[in-house]
């Protein structure tokens, strides 16, 4: 093959490889998106309060 088509073919292969889609994240991004702690939106009522609630007349 002459040099020109060979260069073109190589360019196309490199371009194809570069255009490939990645869905999985790289490890650094995984570390970043992973939550480090719970977000507590509301606390439970203490057990003795619950017991009092359960025993209270309705």
């Amino acid at each position, binding site marked *: *093959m002459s040099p020109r088509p060979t260069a073109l*073919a190589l360019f196309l*292969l490199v371009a*194809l*490889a*570069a*255009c*490939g*889609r*990645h*869905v*999985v*994240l790289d*490890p650094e991004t*995984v570390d970043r*998106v*992973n*939550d480090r*702690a*719970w*977000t*507590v*939106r*509301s*606390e*439970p*009522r*203490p*057990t003795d309060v*619950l017991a009092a609630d*359960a025993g209270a007349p309705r």
Partner: protein
Amino acid sequence: MVETGTVHRLLLVAVITLLSTGCAFANVDVHPPDAPPAAQLEAQGRGGPGRGREVIVHAPFADARYELTRCGMQKNGYNMDTADVKCTEAPGRWVADALAVELLRAGYKPLRADAVPGPTTIVVSGTVHQLFLEPKHDFFTLTVEGDVSARLVVSTASGLLAERGFYVKGTETGIASTEAAFQASSDQATRRIARSMVAALTQLLERYPGLGAPSASAPGSPALRSDR
């Protein structure tokens, strides 16, 4: 007219190209990781951090993945998406079941969604945001990466409401993206996210020792499926 030699060379390049892509044109099936029988998990869990606390797992989790029709992609040597990876089970059920297995292994008592919660019974629901497997080509080897992401919401009738996102990666390195490589990567990622969830739940419940006390809920069937 094109010379015969040139045609032969082009054919040779085409054949080498096809061979180098291997079996990347065939769809691949992956299934949830195999789990030991429930009795064995219970035995492992005795004395574990779960301390017999009851947890209702609302399975299946919601499925909020970007690509709902597949669980990954096969790629050829040029990084082109050539075939699908199919999950044999819906990812919402997949991740919820894996969590139930790890809860049992850690000494919790996972209950099915139809159990009746008491005021301090822990209720866990979740949403799967990612379950995707994809090969990445290195110079001589190939790594199948598996990403699993889910968000858990933990609540009790007594007022606890907490949530946390989890994102983990499994990897399996080999020389080809075979079904076994996809399965190994998927197993690793699934177990990793389930263990992370259980460790995080244990950490959360250390702040509220009264929650999940045994017999807080009416007897319910274990969250594990009967075939495990």
